């Protein structure tokens, strides 16, 4: 045990990809924290593919790292490779997102936000903004992706409690600004477009695209149509400051410090809780100006 204290801790981390500003911030946070603590980080980018992630984990096992951490692309499908990790005696820490496994001992702990909860928070924000009367247009994330599924789930769960709030249009915007704009343009041309008074976007990027579409159609975003989105990236705060976005539900990407606290504990065989929730808030226009300078991503 004295030996391990001397040796550099080797951690393999498999990231989902670099698909959004949020993800890049997440990666940066993890990398810089590892460097700060002098940890030998083996970083691998899965480019949004689960099979790449499985390859990386298997490779980490072959390389003989001390701890494996990863942000799973999807919830299922990791059982066999986690079994291998367990056999090789390497502890696994999940970040950002959980996995579904029959045997919970396959990972030690999970740090991250709760997408379903984010959806619920967004719905509550909508209720607060509109007093429970809303015709909602929804910009869904990438079809089949975990955040899209869970955020929708949480949102609709709360919605069922408000009879006067309903989703009247829903379409995927692929989590991107361009698609968000394109889909919003189409929404605004529907015959019942006038009824829309709320936009719920599964992430900020799509909301920012939609805002442009509204402006081009001569609609005031944030006023004519209230906008609620998720993530809390810098661009969203800027938009809120300008009054174009109403609420963003934070989903904190800066998990580095919390993650390595956990990893070091795990490496030292200390007890850790099975579930650690990252600290996140819900921000509205009133808080935007104060919060903006603190956002580096």
């Amino acid at each position, binding site marked *: 045990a004295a030996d391990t204290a001397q040796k550099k801790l080797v951690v393999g981390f498999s990231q989902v990809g670099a698909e959004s500003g949020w993800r890049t911030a997440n990666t940066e946070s993890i990398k810089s924290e590892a460097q700060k603590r002098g940890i030998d980080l083996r970083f691998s980018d899965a480019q949004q593919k689960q099979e790449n992630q499985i390859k990386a984990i298997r490779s980490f096992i072959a390389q003989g790292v001390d701890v494996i951490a990863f942000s799973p692309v999807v919830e299922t499908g990791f059982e066999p490779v986690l079994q291998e990790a367990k056999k090789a005696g390497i502890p696994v820490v999940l970040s950002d997102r959980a996995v579904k496994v029959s045997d919970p001992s396959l990972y030690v702990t999970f740090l991250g936000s709760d997408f379903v909860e984010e959806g619920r928070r967004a719905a509550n924000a909508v209720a607060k903004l509109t007093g429970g009367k809303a015709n909602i247009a929804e910009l869904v994330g990438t079809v089949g992706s975990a955040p899209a599924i869970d955020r929708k789930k949480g949102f609709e769960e709360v919605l069922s409690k408000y009879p006067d709030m309903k989703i009247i249009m829903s379409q995927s915007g692929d989590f991107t600004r361009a698609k968000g704009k394109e889909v919003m343009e*189409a929404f605004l041309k529907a015959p019942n477009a006038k009824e829309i008074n709320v936009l719920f976007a599964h992430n900020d990027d799509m909301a920012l695209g939609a805002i442009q579409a509204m402006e081009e159609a001569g609609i005031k975003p944030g006023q004519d149509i209230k906008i609620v989105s998720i993530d809390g990236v810098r661009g969203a705060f800027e938009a809120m400051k300008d009054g174009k976005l109403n609420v963003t539900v934070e989903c904190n990407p800066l998990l580095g410090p919390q993650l390595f606290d956990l990893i070091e504990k795990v490496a030292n065989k200390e007890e850790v809780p099975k579930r650690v929730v990252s600290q996140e808030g819900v921000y509205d226009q009133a808080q935007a100006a104060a919060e903006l300078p603190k956002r580096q991503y």
Partner: protein
Amino acid sequence: MIDWVSDLLFWIVFGSILFLLRGQRIFWSVGALGLLLLFNQFFTPGFFHIQILDGHLYGSRIDVLNQGAKVMLLSLGMVLVIATGGVDLSVGAVMAIAAAVSSRLLVTEHQSAGAAIAAALVISTLAGAWNGVLVAGFGIQPIVATLVLMVAGRGVAQLITEGQIINFLDPTMVYLGNGHLFALPFTLTLVLVTLGLAFFLVRRTALGLFIESVGDNDEASRYSGINAKQVKFLVYTFSGFCAGLAGLVACSNIKSADANNIGLYLELDAILAVVVGGTSLQGGRFYLIGAVVGGLFIQTLTTTLYARNVSSDISPVPKALAIIAVCLFQSESFRTRLSHVVRPFGRILKPLGSRPPQKSITATHDSPKP
């Protein structure tokens, strides 16, 4: 009332264009576009609604023109590449590079919009030239040669933006993808100018003939004294240029450069547009205008699916079926089979399908040779 008149006018114009095109290869692509629009006329409320907003036209059909500009631009480059018997998978990545370069210069390096746009176009043209060197110079199969840039190019774009989404507000840059000229989106002008440029390049010079010849029989072209390598190099370079333009339009559209997502999977749409436009993937004869019409068709399809609120889960299915249907009608053997089965169909399709005996040379290659 106004809508009613403008619709009627639209259909009269469209109908006459179709009538003029009968017997030509692109008749089927334009016809398919017409059918799709006709469907929308009756079944998608609001699709044909058009109004004037801030001094320019505003409506779904305008969106199609504006959003479709990217695919139309790409397909102009792609159609030439395909005509030489190749394919360019890297256009999506090159779009991202162009977007990254321009916005980085604009925002981080504080350069003028003109410089940023010029630099982006130069670099994307160079990227295209790189593909050209691999294919023509080293003789690597086009699909692998361009796969290299497809994979690496997006990385380069992210490297340039350092993984961030760069936002900009420069009016010139914003105008590219959002501005209006003559009450229509400026992107339409951009497409038409590029089409004109391509048209000049291939139809006013002999390049078009060389491209078709190389695509049809590489060896025999060499024997005839055509510099096949040069021809191939040129088309990939031009494709890079077109991708650069499309990339500028794409980032201008959303006033930001999102290196990871700009142009993602758009190479597929561009190839589809070319095929829908009547050009064979085997190379040889190509149809520039067909490619543009193909691009419009695909965008109309996408917009239709959005407008009809078809769930994204299954929206690929109707898209696929529509494309197959278009190509079935382009297929000579399908038409013959159909006219055997359904007699009255045959009577309608026959005069449209089988081309009339050639009288004289038509001015451009975009008309068919029987």
